[in-house]
């Protein structure tokens, strides 16, 4: 959970829920897809560049999310939030924690089975590094993702008065 607090706009950039949902999906899908392309695809320059492009796309989307008002709710210091934001954070964490736990259990189960059945599993530094940053990205974005799907536009004021 990383919030980029701008000096000019400490409350975060205002983006619509729809835009945030698209950014979250792009960030969470493009990264593993890029890693898969680089891992499974032929070792040619165009394919590797496509994989790298997907990973960079994912990181750009994550960077765009980092400074948003919604990400502020899940990632800013708690003392900087008002009681409504803290209640939203509680809701986000209450959803994201079971999701992350489920993903972790599934990942460990897969590694256990894969090592027995000789399926693919991370085998060198580069692959473990990619898994680590994928896990880091997922941990960082899941609370914001959970919140983006729990809220409706009226609740965050997308359909209310202008900021």
């Amino acid at each position, binding site marked *: 959970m990383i919030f980029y607090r701008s000096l000019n706009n400490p*409350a975060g950039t205002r983006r619509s829920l729809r835009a945030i949902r698209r950014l979250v999906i792009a960030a969470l899908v493009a990264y593993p897809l890029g890693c898969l392309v680089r891992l499974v695809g032929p070792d040619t320059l165009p394919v590797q560049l496509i994989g790298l492009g997907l990973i960079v796309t994912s990181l750009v989307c994550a960077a765009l999310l980092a400074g948003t*008002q919604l990400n502020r709710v899940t990632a800013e210091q708690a003392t900087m939030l*008002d*009681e*409504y*934001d803290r*209640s939203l954070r509680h809701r986000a964490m209450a959803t994201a924690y079971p999701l992350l736990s489920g993903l972790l259990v599934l990942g460990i189960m897969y590694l256990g089975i894969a090592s027995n059945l000789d399926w693919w599993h991370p085998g060198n530094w580069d692959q473990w590094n990619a898994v680590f940053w994928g896990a880091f990205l997922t941990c960082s974005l899941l609370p914001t993702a959970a919140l983006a799907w729990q809220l409706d536009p*009226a*609740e*965050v*004021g997308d359909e*209310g*008065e202008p*900021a």
Partner: protein
Amino acid sequence: MNNRLRVLRAERGWSQAELGGQLGVSRQAVNAIETGKYDPSLPLAFKLARLFGLAIEDIFHDDQ
């Protein structure tokens, strides 16, 4: 819980952001209270009551 916050705010000509500024909460918080999506804490309810010069039960009332 229902409330008369939108009406009271409109009577004074305040925007959600202005009311939020006086209460020390965000515009989104005021919006969420007005639309009944969020019930404020007791300290915030007292703050609201003091600001409008009313009792809490004059602003908030139970559905039942």
